[in-house]
Structures are given as C-alpha cells and as structure tokens.
C-alpha cells in the first residue's frame, strides 16, 4: 500500500529519510539529473499516503545487440518501510518498462555478495547470478565479511525478448570477472 509515482527532480529536497541510511549514497545533483534527463521512465518513487517518500529506484538502459538491457542503478527503501514489498513493486515497474518501452533482453543489477536478504529477494523475483565481480564496492570499513564484502554479484532476469533465456546461466556464481571488465 503506497503511491507509486514518477521520480521528480524536486524529490531531492525530500528524500532525506531514505538517503540518511548508511546503505544509500547521496550522489551529486548531476547524477540524478543525468538519469532523469535520459531515462525518466526508469526512475520512480514510492510514497506513503500522507506524502512521505518511502523508497525509490533509479535505472537506465544500456548495452548493444543482445546485451541491450535495463539496469537498476540504485534501489533504496527507508528503514521504517522495509519488509512491505516496496522493492518488489518498483522492480516490477522497471522490468515492465525495460521490456515494453526499451525492448531490452534482460534486466540486471549489482548486489554485495554478503547481502543475503537482498539476494534472496531478487532470486524470488526471478533473478539469478550471472557473474561475480571482484572488488566492485569500496570497503565500508565493516570488514567482517572479508572479500564477500567488496565483491558484487551481477544478477540478471531475462525479459520477453529473450525467450530462450540466453542472457542467464546456471553457474554464474563461479564466473569471476574484475571490476574493470564491467560497464
């Protein structure tokens, strides 16, 4: 239960309850504006009935030929609104637009190898690990997870344009690449 609406530039004035969370980065103004000036339909906000922002997703379309796909750049939900399936709804929208408007072959996203909650969520949505990207994230200084803390899984979900599921593979967790080899 929430309002799903487009992300607007002026939402930057009110996204603090989401962005003050440690896992969410506040980028420079140009970051948000560059996404909105190219892929506004891949950016949306979930709002509570009384107008507070609950979460948002920012995405883009990229790649060439059969690598043409929708990409989830940032997805975040404020701490008090977690476990309400908000991420699921925003992902559904992003997949729908990547499929219908951009005609991409798949949608992909990056997630910390230690973030089991998120990985399970994405697996539940039909994503699977395509490859493991070494040292994709900067160290947060938490350290407990060691290498897993910095490595990312690149997870993918094929869209209707890829009925043969050529964009995914079953042994993705074993496919190691370095951070320089990914866009």
């Amino acid at each position: 239960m929430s309002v799903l609406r487009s992300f607007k530039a002026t939402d930057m004035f009110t996204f603090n309850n989401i962005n003050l969370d440690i896992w969410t980065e506040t980028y420079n103004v140009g970051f948000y504006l560059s996404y909105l000036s190219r892929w506004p339909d891949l950016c949306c906000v979930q709002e509570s009935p009384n107008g507070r922002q609950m979460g948002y997703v920012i995405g883009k379309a990229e790649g060439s030929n059969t690598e043409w796909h929708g990409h989830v750049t940032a997805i975040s939900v404020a701490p008090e609104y977690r476990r309400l399936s908000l991420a699921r709804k925003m992902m559904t929208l992003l997949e729908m637009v990547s499929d219908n408007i951009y005609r991409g072959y798949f949608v992909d996203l990056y997630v910390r190898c230690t973030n089991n909650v998120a990985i399970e969520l994405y697996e539940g949505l039909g994503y699977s690990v395509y490859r493991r990207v070494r040292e994709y994230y900067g160290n947060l200084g938490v350290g407990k997870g060691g290498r897993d803390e910095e490595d990312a899984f690149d997870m993918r979900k094929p869209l209707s344009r890829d009925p043969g599921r050529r964009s995914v593979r079953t042994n993705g967790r074993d496919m190691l690449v370095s951070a320089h080899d990914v866009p």
Partner: protein
Amino acid sequence: MSSALDRQVRPIYDALDTGSNKSAIVTCNKILKKQPKNELVKALKALALVRSQKVEESLVLCDEVLAAKPTDDGVLTAMMHVLRGLGRHRDTVVMFEDAFKKEPTNEDLGAQTFLSNVRAGHWKSAQQIATKLYKTFQEDRYLYWSVMSAVLQANDMSTSIAMRPVLYQLANRLISSSPTPSFHSADRFHLHLSILRELKLYDEAMKLLDSEIGIHICQSSLVCNEMRRDIYRLKGLLIEEGKKAEILITEKKDRNWLEFLSVIDATFSTVDSDKDATIAECSRVKDLFTGIMENDGKRDRSGLLALLELEKRCRQYGLPTDSTRMVDLIQQYFEKIGDKACCFEDLLPYVHLAGDDLSRWTSFLQSVPSTVTTTNELQRSTNSHKLLRHNLAQSDLTIEAELSRATLYTKQYLEGLQLGKDLPTTELQPADDLAILAGHAFISLWVLSNDEKYLLNAVSLLEFASSKSKQSFRIRLMLIRLYRILGAPSPALEHYRAMRIKQIQNDTLSHFLFSRSSMFSLAPSGDLTLMSEYVEASQIYINNSQDTPEFIVRAFTSEKYSQIPEFISFENRLECSLQRDISKLEHTRMRLAFEPVSVDIIDMELIESKFIFDREHFDNRDYKVMPNYQPRIQQTLNEQTLLFGKSEGLGWLWSFLKLYVRAFQHGSDLDETVEEKLLIGDRPKHIPNAHHCPLKERLHQRSEEELLELTPHELTYIRYADVLADWLEPHHDYVRPPPAVVLAEAAKQTELKTGHPLKGIELPVLDGISNGHKKDEEAPPVTEAPAELTTFFDDMKARFEKVKEQSSPTEALAVACLMQEALILFMLETLRFKQASVVKIHKLGNLVASFKAIRTHALAAVRDVSAQLVKMSENEGTVEQRKIIVDSCAEVTMSELDHDFVLNVAKKLSDARKKVLEGYGKGMLRVCTLYAN
C-alpha cells in the same frame, strides 16, 4: 583546423584539462607572439586566465575575441566556458546569435544558439530560434523545442499573467501543426497533454487519451498516467476513473494507493445529489475492499487501509454507519499490521477519536502486552506507546505521569536491546524507537517544568542509544538539537558530521547546524570551524548554477520534455533557497567579527546582500526528517527543540538583511550607478513589478510580522541598529564622493593592475568636484547622539547578568553575541569618518567627537561580558560540574547505561561548554582590542 595548428594547441587543451593554467598561459603566449591574431589561442588564454582568477586580464582578451564575431566551433566552445566563468551568460547568447547570423545554414550553430538561450533561460528568443530552425531544417524536434520554449515562457515569473494564455495557444497551434502526431513519444505526448490541460481543452485531451495508443502510453509511462488522472479529475470524470481503477485493482492486482483513492472518490462523487445511491455504492465498495483484504492477507495492507478511509469519509459526510465500526477497523489494523514500523504512521489520519471511541481505543492499546522478548512484540509494544502518546490529553501530561512513561520507555528500551545484540554495527537496533520515545518524554518534561535535568537525562539516554545504533540518524538529529539548547555546540557538530551530510543535503539539512550559529562562532579566537563548514556547504549552490542548466540542455537534446519544467523549478528553488541566505547572513555576521571591517569587505558584502534582497525565496529546509511522537495537543518535537523556540523564516532574514544592507550602503562608495558599471557578469533575473517601491524605502520598512520571528534580544539589537543608521545616514549620503570620482579611482586602480584602461567607462572632466564636495546642497546639521546607543549596552549587560545564572550558557552567549555585533556595527557605521580629511572638509568635528563616548561605553560593556564568559568557563569541565550532571541523570542510570557512561557524557557536555565559553569570551576580548583605538 590545420594539423600544424592542431599540434600547437593540443598542449594547451591538455594543460587546461589537467588544471595547469599557468603552463597553458605560457604556451598561449608563445603562439601569440608569432600569430597575434589567432582567435582560438586568444580564447584559450582567456579561459586559462579566468581559471587562475585573473579576471581583469581575461576581460580584455575576451572582448577582443567577441568583437571579431567568431564562428569557429573551437573558438565558440572555449568562449562559452570563458563567459560562463565570468557569469556573462547573456554575452554567450549574443555570441552564438551573431555566429548563426553569419552562417544561417549551419545547423549545428543554430542548435547551439538555441541551447545557449536555454542555458540563460531566455525562452522568448529560444522559441523564435527553434521556429527558425524548424523552418530551415524541417526536423520535428525543432518544432517541439519551440513548443516547449513557448510553454516555459508562459510559466516564467517575468511573463505577465495576460500573456500566459496567449503563449499556451501559440504552443497548441504549433504542436497541432506537427506532421507526426505527438504520441510518437511519451514525452511529446505529455507535453501536448499539459498544453491542453492548461487551456482547459479537456475534450481534445480525452480524445488523445482514449485512443488506443494513448491508453498504451499511459499504461507504461507514470508521468503520462499522472497527467491523465489529473485531466480526468478536472473534467469531473470521477466515476469513470473509479471504474478504471477498480478494474486495475481486481484484474491486474494493482495495489497503487492512488487507484484505491480513485475508487473511494468515485463512491462519494454523488453524495450531494443522490444520497441513497451513495449509501448503496458504499456498501458495494465495502464488500469489494473486504474481499481484497481477505485475499491479500498479510501480503498487502491496501484493502484494510481502504476500508478505514471509506469509513472515515462515511463519517465525514454523515452517512449512516455502525458506531463501533471505526474503532473495530482500527483495532483490526493494529492486530494485523501492528508488528510493522509503519503502523503508527498509517493509522495517524484515523485515530483522532473522542468520547467512547477514544476510551475503547485507549483501553485496547493499554492491553497490548508490554513484553519485548521477540522483535514482533517489541514493535507492537512500541506502536502502542506511540499511538497512546498521540492521543494524550492535557490532564495526562503531568510531571509524574510523563516521568513514569519516560521510565517505562527507558526500561523497555534497555530490555529490547537484547534482541539486537548480535547485529552488525551497520544495522539499526530494533529497540531504537523506544529510546526515541523516552527522549520525547524527557523533552516534554523539560517543556512542562523548565528543569534542565530532564534534557540531561534525554542526552545521556540518546547518547547511549546512539552508541548502540550508530546509523540511527533520527537519534543524532535529536542530540544535535539538545546539545545546542544546552550550550554545547561541538558535540552537536560531531553528530552532524557523523551523518555524512553532503550534496543537496547541504541545503535541506544544514539548518540543523547553521541556525543562529554566529553565537557559537569562535572565529575571533582563531577557531574557524563553523566558517569553513559554511564555505563547504555553500558549494552546492555554485554547483547548481553551473551544472543544472547543462542538464536542462540535455533534457532538450534527448527530448525528455516532461522533465524540463521540473529541472527549472529545482534549479530555481535551490538558487533562491531561504536556507542559503540565512546561512550566508550568519556567515557575514561571523566574518565581521573575524576580520577588521574595511571598505573592501563592505563593498563585497553590499553587492552580495543586495542580490539576496531581491530574491523570491523558497524554503527547502527539511523538518519532517525529525521524528515526532509528542501528543497532538503539544507542539511537535521539532518546534519544542528549536533554539529559543523560534525558527528563522523570511521575516528573520529580512530583518537582519535590511540592517546590513543599510549599514553596508552607508559604509560604501558604490552607489547604484557605480555598481552597474563595475560589476562583471549578469545580475540576477528580476521579476518586474514584484517590488513597487524603491530599495531605499523598502530598507526603512519594518513590519510587525517580520519582527515577530526575532527573539526579544534580537529585536532590541535591531532597534539599536535602526537608531544608529537613522542618525548617521544623512551624513553618509552627503559625504560620499560622487560616482564620477569613484569610477575615476577604480579606473586608475585597474590600469595600474592590468596595464589596460577600464572598459566602457567614459570619465568626465573632474575639475572642481574631485574633493567630493556637493556645493549645491546644504550639509545636514549635526545632531546629538541618540541616548539609545549607550543604553542598549547597559540594557544588554543587565540581561546578561540575569541569564548567566542559567546552567546552559546558550542564552548568555546569545546576548554576548549581539553586544559584540552592536559594537562592530558601530565601527562599521563610523568607519567613513575616520579619515581626518573628510572630517575637516565637512566640519564634522562635533559628530566625530560624540562617537568616542559611545565607543568607550560599548567597549567597556563588551569587555566586561567577555571577562565574565571566561570566568564562567572556569566552572565548566570540573569534577564538581560533572558530578552535578551525573546526579541529574538518575532517571536513566540503570543496568547497562551505567554511572561510567553517564560520567563520560557529563564530561563531553561540560568540556564543550567550557570550550565555547572560553573561546567566545577570548574572541570578544580580541574584537575589543581591535577597535580600542
């Protein structure tokens, strides 16, 4: 470009890219020796000069290049950067326009000309150029550019209201003439709909929306669907919209809350005309929502919340309904969603109950078990506390009752910590909100009793909670507010920094740090922390004015028209941010205490503060990020914890700004005509007719409403400043040298510095007026010094004596700060009369003689207060002081939150007080020494 030249200039570009401006200049000079007329090299040199802050030299080159009306792509691009660096956006536009006139078939040049108008916000010429581009090159996008520009011109604040519909009609004509229909892309479609909506051509809009392709676009484009929803509502099609929404909810399982609202709006759309039908419809929709609720179960809470909203509206419209149903539903909601953090917020609109309803609901909540052995129980218990607290009546808010609540919350919090003890430090503790609730209760106790010990309890508990949950920004925000009230700015700054505030947050959240911060500035004693925080934070405004226009340009080139009005509004709200200018003013106040007042500072501050004075401000400060669980009959937590209970708004800004603009005008020789000639770069856009009366009159107006935002001490200071300004203004105006003399001096200085004469200024013959004497006017009579100027210091000193007994030094610092400021203002206002020649020529001996008595009096008072502050600081940071604080915190000192922890908090607090008292006191003494003679 010839390859030889290319080889020559490549190193210049490389040097510029890597920021080696010096070496770029050297290379340019080498080439210019052989090819003195090379425009590209000149332009690049101008760029390197701008980037090394050599503005005057750059201006000369820049104007030479412009005069040659360049058309070469490289020259134009370089010049675009030069002019941007100089803030001369209008000249960029002219440069491109001239180039395009020379080469009207150059499409790229045409597009650049259009985009340069976009950057400068010149929508009218942008529209004309786009039309011309469309005619010449027959590209659809140019047509849409011209449509968008017409719409933006209509929306521009400088466009008269009468012109707006005309421009929209023009936009409509243009878009209708397009050979390809607007549904070619979602953004063109959106633009088309927005025009039709503005012109109230709903039927035409409906035709587009109800077409097959229109329906398809709205299904996958949120912006278009939002526009569609709006048009349906404006057209009064609530029932049709409700039907559509119902299909989405039932068939597509859409759970967007907007769809549920549409169904509910449709249900009540006939309530005035046909009540019976509404009642029947209500019961049908009730069944619909009940079905959804049962079907969705715990997966989604829309159905249940929709039932609540339906019931609320039934009651609003006085439709028959079961009297117990509202509370039944609320309780049902709590049963089901009570273990989620959002339950409290979801229920807020529905729990404003009274009478039997309220007592039933209250006893229900009281029966929620207060056990916290599982996370679910903890969340339920927390929610029940929040909801109970929300509805507390005045009679429930006694010291005893609040104290027992505070104790209950604290105990439960400490128990609840067990649940999260194994979580990594990056996670929030599930019990955090109980600590936040306890903080609320302690703050409420402070409000009720005015006893500081409750704030100390709150700080100890919240510090503990923060140590357990390092990522909780809500706990930190509360601590920042409390430390400021308690006169301990340095731990407040620590917590502020720990939140990693950056980028846009420097606008929306910096009020937590900068609000009335000059009273905590230790700059005069050498600690520049706050001033540099300001400089860092204000970078966001520079970034905005440099970067945002580029993204508006990008949105045009990628044809994302739906975003353009939003980007413009964003840019404008940030450019004209209230917080920007409030903190700028605080910085000015800090700066004046830090640097000795001089003509240079006065001139610079005058120009900046006058720009601010003409802005239409927007308040972007985020206060909602503060938690609020105070009873609804009380003030919010945000209001309760503002320094002195007052937030600075526009009234506060105007009050101080008028004071300083007047003082700077008095001290400066730059009158309007001089400023016009000497200023480099564009002035901010002005809104015609927004201000009917001239600046000078506006500066003299003080309205009750504005003054209400001031604290009593600030108000006294403003009165003092007005008396001082009124007294000296006639003399300043008479003595100030005429513009011609000021300009001649400026020209002389520029020539000395750059070797070139000042451009665009024709100097009149100066014979006879060089001494600045205005012969045709009579000198204003010298009047006796107003008594208020000395009594102000007596009055403030008396206030200081009174407030210094309070254990928090905050108010004492506020009084001391204004006294110091009053002294500096006096020095600023009398600076002009320090020149012996001025006094002699204008026979101002008597006036100047009366300054001395005031100054001596002011200095004595400020010195005395400064000594007292230092004395007060000696009592802080001691074992006794710590013990007093620790003893005050008995309410929260239990189990894990032990004596040692509280002692550390006490040390931190008392040390911080010591630091600010000592630093401020010593700083004041330094200011006194500076102005002793």
